[in-house]
């Protein structure tokens, strides 16, 4: 076939692991994956972390990151097996025929050089274009990707454009040398939902206009469904299912794919507010030390016992700052916070041990929320010892009870955080918060660093625990799908203010204000053609522009 671009056969990839207290040994991370890609088509690679999707993506450049080796199989690009070619040929391939768009554009651009210089570099180095031609092409790409001021934006430095714009610049960088294949490695994962749409739209249009083939790697099936022609579902280095996008989304065959398609289908019945709220935030205004800008402006919210208040907004909307104010890490400038009928002192250090115990917190990044030098037993046991003075066998018994409650079991008691998976780490953090027998837990983006299925498990666990322990959650998130699954009431935040607040049914029912509408419509839906529909019906520009 003449338009066959990529042919991967029985690709095997291995690495050497260095487990603590054991000899280094070799493992296989990808076990014989095969796929084809024609010119101008997009193949979506989807899977959870550890599925090997990025590793497979990089293998189309015959490259293995950080000690990863391609151990077997064939990777044919433009009619030659690149695993058998010499280094000089690989140099022509990398950045010339095959280019790469990474997840974090901010970490990939050199902050000391203007954007356009970095974009034309590969094209000039590969002698595809002269410098002035390449610069012209860059401007053309900027225009195609919908960047503002396409003539001059390249002269800016990476920190002078927003995250979504920088991600589009990275796409321009990849497209500039007229490659045959672009590998997109989670290009929108680090972006806000409303920005994600713009970048997705730009990538999709650019792929269509330039006729380039693409490998699109992501963990979000709803996203990949919008851009790809075919989808390959991967799990732990094996192909689970491989078919057209239409078939995968509308008629999945394997159980694992079905689970991915139906993710976030948790149903949560909204509870009625009680007469006495547990937490009352009144007219709170706050700013960071040394700045003259209020990050929170006149915020009023209430949280009822045993219920969940979801605080939704994009980065910079002040939702995490609200958590810091409630915990006392950032004392408010004005307003007051009432908790369980008594007024909370603004300064955390001045609060009573009882206040501290009743208000616990769970963090977004579970791996930095636990001391890597403490075992699970120590981490969960410390609040028991600290607040209740429980020691010895009794403490051990209670730790095991808590481990059972988070569905992990007593085998984990002597493990270190490094020996746990992402979901298990977050569970341990939940157990640590529960150990204090709190009345309220602040959950700060607790599921956003997790894979969809794992995140679902955590949400279900949180809901179950709420029923048993009657604990209230202040749930901070940017993900409206999560909110729909878990909240009783919702506060939508935008630029430090609560723009919409009420029970879940009120907030999620029309008529919407412009911002809530933008936010709601930006949540990727698991159907084909969603992206086009949304863009056609938008009322407000996203904050990223």
């Amino acid at each position, binding site marked *: 076939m003449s338009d066959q671009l990529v042919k991967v056969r029985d690709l095997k990839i291995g690495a050497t692991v260095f487990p*603590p*207290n054991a000899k280094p040994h070799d493992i296989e991370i990808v076990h014989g994956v095969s796929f084809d890609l024609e010119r101008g088509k997009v193949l979506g690679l989807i899977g959870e972390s550890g599925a090997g999707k990025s590793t497979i993506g990089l293998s189309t450049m015959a490259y293995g990151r950080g000690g990863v080796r391609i151990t077997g199989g064939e990777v044919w690009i433009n009619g030659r097996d690149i695993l058998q070619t010499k280094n000089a040929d690989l140099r022509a391939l990398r950045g010339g025929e095959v280019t790469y768009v990474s997840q974090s554009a901010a970490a990939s651009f050199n902050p000391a050089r203007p954007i356009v210089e970095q974009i034309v570099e590969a094209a000039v180095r590969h002698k595809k274009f002269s410098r002035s031609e390449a610069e012209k092409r860059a401007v053309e790409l900027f225009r195609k990707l919908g960047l503002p001021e396409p003539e001059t934006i390249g002269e800016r430095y990476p920190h002078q454009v927003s995250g979504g714009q920088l991600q589009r610049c990275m796409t321009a960088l990849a497209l500039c040398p007229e490659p045959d294949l672009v590998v997109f490695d989670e290009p929108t994962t680090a972006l806000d939902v409303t920005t994600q749409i713009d970048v997705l739209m730009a990538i999709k249009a650019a792929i269509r206009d330039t006729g380039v083939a693409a490998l699109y790697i992501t963990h979000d099936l709803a996203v990949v469904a919008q851009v790809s022609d075919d989808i390959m579902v991967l799990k732990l280095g094996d192909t689970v299912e491989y078919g057209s996008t239409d078939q995968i989304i509308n008629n999945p065959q394997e159980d694992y794919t079905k689970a991915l398609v139906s993710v976030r289908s948790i149903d949560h019945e909204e509870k009625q507010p009680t007469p006495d709220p547990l937490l009352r935030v009144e007219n709170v205004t706050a700013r960071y030390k040394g700045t003259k800008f209020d990050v929170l402006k006149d915020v009023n919210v209430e949280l009822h016992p045993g219920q969940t208040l979801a605080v939704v907004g994009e980065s910079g909307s002040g939702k995490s700052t609200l958590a810091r104010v409630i915990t006392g890490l950032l004392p408010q400038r004005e307003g007051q916070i009432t908790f369980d009928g008594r007024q909370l002192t603004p300064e955390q250090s001045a609060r009573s*041990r009882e206040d501290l115990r009743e208000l616990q917190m769970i963090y977004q990044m579970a791996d930095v929320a636990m001391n890597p030098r403490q075992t699970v037993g120590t981490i969960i046991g410390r609040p028991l010892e600290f607040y209740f003075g429980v020691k010895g066998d009794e403490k051990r018994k209670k730790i095991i009870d808590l481990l059972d409650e988070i569905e992990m079991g007593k085998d984990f008691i002597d493990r270190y955080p490094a020996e746990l998976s992402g979901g298990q780490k977050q569970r341990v953090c939940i157990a640590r918060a529960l150990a204090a027998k709190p009345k309220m837990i602040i959950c700060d983006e607790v599921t956003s660093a997790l894979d969809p299925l794992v995140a679902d498990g955590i949400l279900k666990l949180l809901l179950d625990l709420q029923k048993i322990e009657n604990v209230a959650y202040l749930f901070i998130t940017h993900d409206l799908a999560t909110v729909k699954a878990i909240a009783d009431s919702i506060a939508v935040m935008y630029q430090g203010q609560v723009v919409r607040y009420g029970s879940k049914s009120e907030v999620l029912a029309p008529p919407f204000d412009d911002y809530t509408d933008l936010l709601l419509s930006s949540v990727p839906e698991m159907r084909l053609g969603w992206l086009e529909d949304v863009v056609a019906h938008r009322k407000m520009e996203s904050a990223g522009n």
Partner: protein
Amino acid sequence: MIKNIPLAAAVGLFFTGLYFLVAIFAQWIAPYGMAEVVGGVWEPPSAKHWLGTDNIGRDLLTRMIYGGQTTIFIATMATVISFTTGSVLGFLAAVLGGWADQLLSRFVDLVMSIPSLILALVILSVMPVTVPILIVVMGLLDSTRVYRLARAVAVDIAVMDYVEAAKLRGEGRAWLIFREILPNALSPLVAEMGLRFIFMVLFISTLSFLGLGVQPPMADWGGIVKENKDGIVYGIGAALWPAVAIATLAISVNLVADWILNRTTSLKGGRG
């Protein structure tokens, strides 16, 4: 654990252990008395005197053994002082922040702006030069370096979520420093400790060589170099032995420190 020691670490461990054992049991190992004159001036190595004799006819091997004892003892004690002061103050500065941090850090900058050897010479020239004073002066001067490192490491750790979680729990400063920060700061500090120990050996040797360190007739490696340096002109290598001792000790301690660094970081899942 013993089975997995890499060769370099095993070699380092062997020599470090050897030096420390010899230092501890010097009194029983040394063939002659420390200040005993047993032969002629600068006799060549023989069955009686394995390394020959020194500038006034004392057995050089005996001098080396006692010298090692003095040098290693002073260096060890000074390292202990510099580490406890430096790291406790460094952690405290990182946890307290604000003016306490400013005060400590600027004072340390002030001390560090004067070369420590010059500062030590000035201090020692007005104080009685005894072993305890040497140890305290060296330890305190060097603690500024440890302070810098400890504070830098602790500032990084103090902003981690698990430290914030401990603060929110209501833990006191002692728990934050000793249970949350110290275990995570240990590996860079241990590596630094090997390095600082060697600097201490060099420091005390330099001081002795300049005449403001260990006073005769006590032996120490720097002093032995000083006593025998004139021999080099006549082709007598007596002054080279302490140099060899200092070099091998330095290398082996660093090999051990490297290995410890690797082992402890693997707990976090990484390899350093």
